[in-house]
């Protein structure tokens, strides 16, 4: 049987839009064809997780059953009581499959876990979010089917953007009126073509054409600068990889948002001109936004809230610094248990801490000039800090130094 990866080729778009037509016509007339939509989602899930990837398909089914039970049991408990221990256990149990999948390659010499599948992280983010919002009392009812529809929402299943249950559910139940839907279709068409430009033209140019060339050049210079491999081609690799990472991922995200829009769901955007950021904090409000907001809302803010409420650390600056460290370390480990992902996390935590120190300094000393030149310099500096972090993230230094 065939296996087709989401948004992989232009042909994929012809196929998905063909299958989407009944849904589009329905929504245009103010109706959601629930049965057809379910069938459509099943067909595309089978295409993604079937054929040569059938093991992933089995893992996905097992995972969904596991999370429905975990979240469902917690929901039943939460309806009656609200103690801390069951909440903590529910979160731990919900992330166990993801932890196994992330740790297995590190301890088994690169071997992938059998329970893994494309997108397990993103489904876990959604499951944990459900438990946390139930704990807060923001989600009061648990409908297994609505939950499954949310975590398996086809356009965003493999790599996000990460939606929020209440937002998603509202869009699902409330069909946009004709004007609004037309605007969404309009945007969707634009996003698809922007995505083509990003992923298939620029992403391809930087990632498939230029990257191997600069990688080869940089490898030839391995012994440069006291055997550190620091060379101009390495700098070239850093910028080329950064461009590739952005255009490839932003392109993919545009596709996911566009297909969501066609299905009447306003999945949030993932990127907002990240390379125009004025500082690193600004960057995390513009880069992979749904992920960084997830970390902000479910790790950073909850961690600081907990520490400050119990007055474990009195100094608010120390609290925020510790929270940055926890936040970005978790993000690093989430990317994968390798030294370069963990260093990437630490690097961003350090950058955030230094940035806050600078912002406090600037607030105190009103005389510091602020003009177009300093702004330009801030953007330039931030851009280079980001690109350097992506060089760490790329794992190329691992190849350069240790392979």
């Amino acid at each position, binding site marked *: 049987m065939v296996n087709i990866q989401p948004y992989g080729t232009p042909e994929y778009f012809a196929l998905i839009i063909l299958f989407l037509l009944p849904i589009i016509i329905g929504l245009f007339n103010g109706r959601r064809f629930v049965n057809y939509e379910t069938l459509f989602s099943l067909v595309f899930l089978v295409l993604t997780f079937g054929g040569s990837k059938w093991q992933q398909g089995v893992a996905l089914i097992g995972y969904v059953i596991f999370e429905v039970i975990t979240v469902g049991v917690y929901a039943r408990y939460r309806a009656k009581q609200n103690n801390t221990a069951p909440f903590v256990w529910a979160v731990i149990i919900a992330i166990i499959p993801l932890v196994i999948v992330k740790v297995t390659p590190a301890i088994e010499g690169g071997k992938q876990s059998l329970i893994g599948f494309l997108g397990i992280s993103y489904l876990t983010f959604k499951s944990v979010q459900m438990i*946390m919002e139930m704990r*807060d009392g*923001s989600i009061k009812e648990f409908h297994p089917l609505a939950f499954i529809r949310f975590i398996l929402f086809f356009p965003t299943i493999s790599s996000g953007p990460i939606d929020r249950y209440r937002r998603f559910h509202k869009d699902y139940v409330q069909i946009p009126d004709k004007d609004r839907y037309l605007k969404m279709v309009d945007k969707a068409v634009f996003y698809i073509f922007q995505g083509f430009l990003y992923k298939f033209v620029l992403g391809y140019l930087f990632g498939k054409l230029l990257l191997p060339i600069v990688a080869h050049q940089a490898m030839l210079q391995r012994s440069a600068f006291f055997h550190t491999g620091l060379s101009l081609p390495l700098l070239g690799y850093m910028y080329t990889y950064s461009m590739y990472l952005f255009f490839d991922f932003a392109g993919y995200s545009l596709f996911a948002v566009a297909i969501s829009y066609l299905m009447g769901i306003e999945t949030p955007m993932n990127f907002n001109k990240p390379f125009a950021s004025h500082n690193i904090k600004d960057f995390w409000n513009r880069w992979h936004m749904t992920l960084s907001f997830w970390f*902000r809302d479910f790790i950073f803010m909850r961690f600081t*809230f907990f520490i400050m409420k119990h007055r474990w650390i009195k100094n608010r600056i120390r609290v*925020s610094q510790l929270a940055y460290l926890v936040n970005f370390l978790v993000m690093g480990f989430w990317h994968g248990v390798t030294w370069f992902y963990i260093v990437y996390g630490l690097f961003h935590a350090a950058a955030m801490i230094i940035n806050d120190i600078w*912002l406090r300094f600037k607030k105190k000393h009103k005389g510091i000039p602020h003009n177009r030149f300093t702004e330009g310099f801030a953007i330039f500096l931030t851009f280079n800090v980001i690109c350097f972090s992506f060089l760490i993230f790329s794992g190329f230094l691992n190849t350069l130094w240790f392979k």
Partner: protein
Amino acid sequence: MDAKETVMNVLKDITGTDLSDKMDENLFETGLIDSMATVELLLNLQDELGIDVPISEFDRQEWDTPNKIINKVESM
């Protein structure tokens, strides 16, 4: 002290800025409030006014100016 006065005092404490002439200024966009300051705001509202706002219910767009915060607090 009424809710408005309390909120303005809390905001002054957190941001280190007197906001009484900036009632409609976007506190997130200007960088006066960040996630850390948000948590302080929520904790202060809890301590001083007994208002419990879970993090899940904190939608930035509904809390991004002093006026909006006061309206939010008064509606609770």
